[in-house]
């Protein structure tokens, strides 16, 4: 053993001397860099001869499902310069006169402000004048007084051909803010970069963004380029193909034109969204090009809130559209059966309060089928009382009400399914039976987004699978099976068919396709009632679901149901509808496509 002990001792000594030796090597490197200054970059930076330029990458473009461009890039010019070349007021004044001579109203104080905002290091390039067209730029560069130290740089700018039509889906890009810079400190953003501020532009920022290019150049004493030291080209971001169908989206936008509200349409089996319209809307083009504070306020502070995407952020009482959910959960809980009948006398007295049916004369005896068809309130009051609030909330959770649907857009609202605990917390009041009664016709402490309503109906249409709504296949998720009994589901589906074929929603059935759905009229404390309709088609083999919520639209049957009917008919007749069929004929084929896409991104 003593040999090995000696060996170990020797080895430790060797190791220590290696470590210390390597540190001398580091020290030599540091000496070279700091004292001897042999480093090319250090020398150039010291002599003010190094310039670093950053090129923004063209952003990935966005297309609809048929390849219609929704967000594209256009070339514009910016005038760039370095802080060290603009260090005297005279230089700025000279530049300003040139600009003003060519019709660009920029004063010295404007320029000073721009420089102050972007200045990072003397040799780091800044953008002095953005958004110039080719003729403007050529005109400027030809001016004899144009400062030689400045130079034009072509820049990609975002435009949205569909404009207001898809603004609530696409969102827009704009210059990164101070807060965003801090939040994204790790992702290599710099001041002046563009970033997705809303919609798809924001949720897929990572994919769309691309990689900025850089160039290091050596300049002479007057700031003119001597040689390129190093360069690295910009890499374009990845293109996105959405599930959106611009034809359907356009139609939805036109249907909503004179109303406030939302209209969504999606594939019942995959959750792929074909249309997601919100009205009023806004034009995202000026926002992407940069608007003045005044213009911005005009859009952002508009009382009808055009920038709010009502399809995912507007929360409304589901009203009678909730009755399909009530029916399936009561059937599943065996609270009612297909033959359970309640008599509707026009009102129901619960704890000294009278709850009316919308038809004051009453419907007489109603079973679940006819109650859906007539939208009988009293029948569902009875169902709600038998279920009890706890079971209602349990089923609400199962359908993920009061939770985000996970759609790939920012700003989604979860809605509310409030139970006794919530009421206690919020109002310090206990839960009354009357609250449950209200609940069972989708009023009171229950609020849903139009997308959530569509999602519940997609699950009823597709045999009990809760889909994840999405606008891009990258966010596709396998639907979650709710394990509903097929016969009970078929009963609810039948009731919804009756609504359109012979009940309150007949106006949805006048477009040549068989629709099943439900009307709704949501009480609105602030004015006229909201009108709702949600339906799917074809009723016998459901493909698409669509939901409309029209603020202050009075009755669901008159305003909202024809919108949904027209939209569903269009989708089924549309050639894209056929494509979609091919895509999802075998279960899982969309999943495969999705995997391919995500692979391509890695």
């Amino acid at each position, binding site marked *: 053993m003593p040999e090995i002990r000696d060996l170990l001792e020797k*080895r430790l000594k060797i*190791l220590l001397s290696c470590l210390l030796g390597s540190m001398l090597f580091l020290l030599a*490197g540091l000496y070279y860099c700091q004292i001897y200054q042999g480093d090319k970059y250090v020398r150039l930076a010291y002599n003010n001869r190094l310039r670093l330029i950053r090129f923004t990458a063209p952003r990935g473009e966005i297309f609809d499902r048929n390849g219609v461009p929704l967000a594209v890039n256009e070339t514009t010019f910016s005038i760039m310069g370095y802080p060290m070349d603009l260090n005297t007021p005279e230089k700025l004044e000279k530049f300003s006169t040139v600009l003003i001579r060519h019709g660009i109203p920029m004063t010295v104080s404007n320029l000073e402000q721009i420089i102050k905002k972007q200045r990072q290091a003397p040799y780091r390039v800044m953008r002095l004048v953005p958004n110039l067209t080719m003729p403007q730029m050529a005109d400027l560069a030809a001016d004899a007084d144009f400062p030689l130290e400045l130079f034009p740089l072509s820049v990609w700018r975002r435009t949205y051909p569909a404009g207001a039509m898809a603004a609530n889906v696409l969102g827009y890009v704009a210059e990164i803010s101070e807060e965003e810079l*801090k939040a994204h400190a790790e992702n290599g953003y710099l001041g002046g970069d563009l970033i997705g501020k809303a919609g798809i532009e924001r949720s897929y920022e990572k994919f769309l963004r691309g990689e900025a290019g850089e160039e290091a150049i050596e300049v002479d004493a007057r700031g003119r380029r001597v040689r390129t030291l*190093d*360069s690295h080209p910009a890499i374009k971001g990845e293109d996105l193909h959405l599930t959106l169908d611009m034809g359907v989206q356009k139609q939805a936008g036109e249907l909503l034109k004179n109303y406030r509200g939302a209209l969504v349409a999606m594939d019942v089996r995959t959750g792929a969204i074909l249309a997601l319209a919100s009205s009023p809307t806004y034009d995202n083009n000026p926002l992407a090009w940069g608007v003045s504070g005044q213009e911005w306020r005009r859009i952002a502070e508009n009382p009808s809130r055009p920038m709010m995407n009502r399809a995912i952020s507007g929360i409304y009482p589901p009203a009678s559209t909730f009755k399909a959910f009530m029916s399936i959960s009561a059937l599943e809980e065996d609270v009612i059966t297909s033959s359970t009948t309640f008599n509707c006398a026009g009102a129901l007295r619960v704890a000294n309060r009278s709850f009316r049916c919308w038809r004051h004369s009453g419907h007489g005896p109603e079973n679940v089928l006819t109650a859906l068809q007539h939208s009988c309130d009293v029948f569902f009051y009875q169902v709600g009382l038998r279920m009890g609030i706890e079971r209602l909330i349990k089923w609400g959770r199962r359908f993920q009400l009061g939770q985000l649907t996970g759609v790939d857009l920012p700003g989604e609202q979860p809605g509310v399914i409030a139970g006794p605990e919530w009421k206690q917390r919020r109002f310090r009041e206990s839960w009354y039976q009357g609250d449950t009664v209200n609940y069972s016709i989708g009023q009171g402490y229950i609020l849903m987004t139009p997308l959530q309503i569509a999602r519940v109906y997609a699950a009823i249409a597709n045999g009990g699978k809760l889909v994840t709504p999405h606008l891009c296949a990258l966010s596709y998720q396998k639907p979650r099976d709710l394990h509903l009994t097929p016969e009970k589901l078929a009963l609810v589906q039948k009731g919804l068919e009756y609504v359109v074929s012979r009940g309150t929603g007949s106006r949805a059935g006048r477009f040549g396709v068989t629709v099943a759905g439900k009307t709704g009229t949501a009480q609105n404390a602030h004015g006229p009632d909201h009108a709702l309709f949600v339906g799917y088609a074809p009723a016998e083999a459901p493909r698409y679901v669509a939901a409309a919520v029209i603020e202050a639209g009075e009755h669901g049957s008159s305003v909202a149901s024809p919108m949904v009917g027209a939209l569903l008919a269009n989708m089924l007749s549309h050639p894209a509808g056929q494509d979609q069929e091919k895509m999802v004929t075998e279960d899982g084929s969309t999943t495969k496509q999705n995997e391919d896409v995500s692979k391509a991104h890695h």
Partner: protein
Amino acid sequence: MESQSISLIKEDIAFLDRPMIGCVLVLVLWGIVCIYSAGAGSLGQGGELAVKQTLWLFLGCLALIVVMIAGHNRLLDAAYFIYGLTLLILLFTPFLAPKVKGAQSWIPIAGFRFQPSELAKISLILMMSKFLSRYPPLTFRTFLAGLGVMAVPVLLVLLQPDAGSALVYVVISLGMLLAAGAPLRYLGGLIGAGAAFLPFVILFGLREYQRMRLLVFIDPMRDPLGAGYNVIQSRIAVGSGGFWGKGFMMGMQSKLRFLPEPHTDFIFSVCSEEFGFVGDVLLLILFAVLFCRIIGAGARSRDPRCRIFVAGVAMWIWVQMFESIGMSIGLMPVTGLPLPFLSYGGSALLSLFIVLGLVESIYIENNKFRSVIHALS
């Protein structure tokens, strides 16, 4: 009883290796100064980061004392168990950890983000010292077995994928094999084989960005701005520091957020820009003293496990220091390894203090033993 154990702790603390603790404290405090300065730029959170790091320092000291009391013997005895447990954690990390910057290596526990690959360094060192002292790598078979012990965690972190940690594990293990007396021809052969395989690894085994970083290192003109942009900025920062440096809070490169991650990966550039060549020399002296103390603690021990153990600890600190400083002046490729003791980061600091607790425990045992011998003679 209680007072007795407290007096035992007091006794232990009295035997502490003061130069080593002193070096470490100066390094960490210096690091906090640099973190404050690095974060004070457009990040605007210098104070916040410095306070957090100070809290981690206190937590680290606490951990050091706890580990020291638990003692290296106990942990070395349990080395196989700890190693096995760590491998399990590493195996499950990809499932537990949310993706941060493309690499899955953090597990959030009770609000803390904890990095299993840091902890695995400790258990790898414990395991290797126990294993290599039991089966000295003097024959080819035992040498291969020692490599096997290293290979498992290396493969697991490569899956995360965390190439930086894998590199650290390999260097630690090679150093420990050397310290454990492995024939030099085996080690030479291994490094030679590794060098021969390197082109294949670069071509097939690396991700695009990793390949680029390596190629940039080999040929800086290839794409210096793409992958080497950080390096240019860092070189300008270090180089502009000059002999005396620009002074505390005067560094431009870090203030203007030119350097990526100035408070973590590029903390040395911040330090070097503000404190200059003089600061660098001082920093390297502190590290040199630290290495001498760590290896000295093992060299005096009669337990071969301890001798191999300190080699692992020294190699760990060394490889990260060498890589981090080398990277900031373009001598080494960019890997994103933090500079030990100085870089911002709780997990890293904590695990360093834990191994130093073990080194202290080894040191104290020798010291006590010697004082007993001394008293007897």
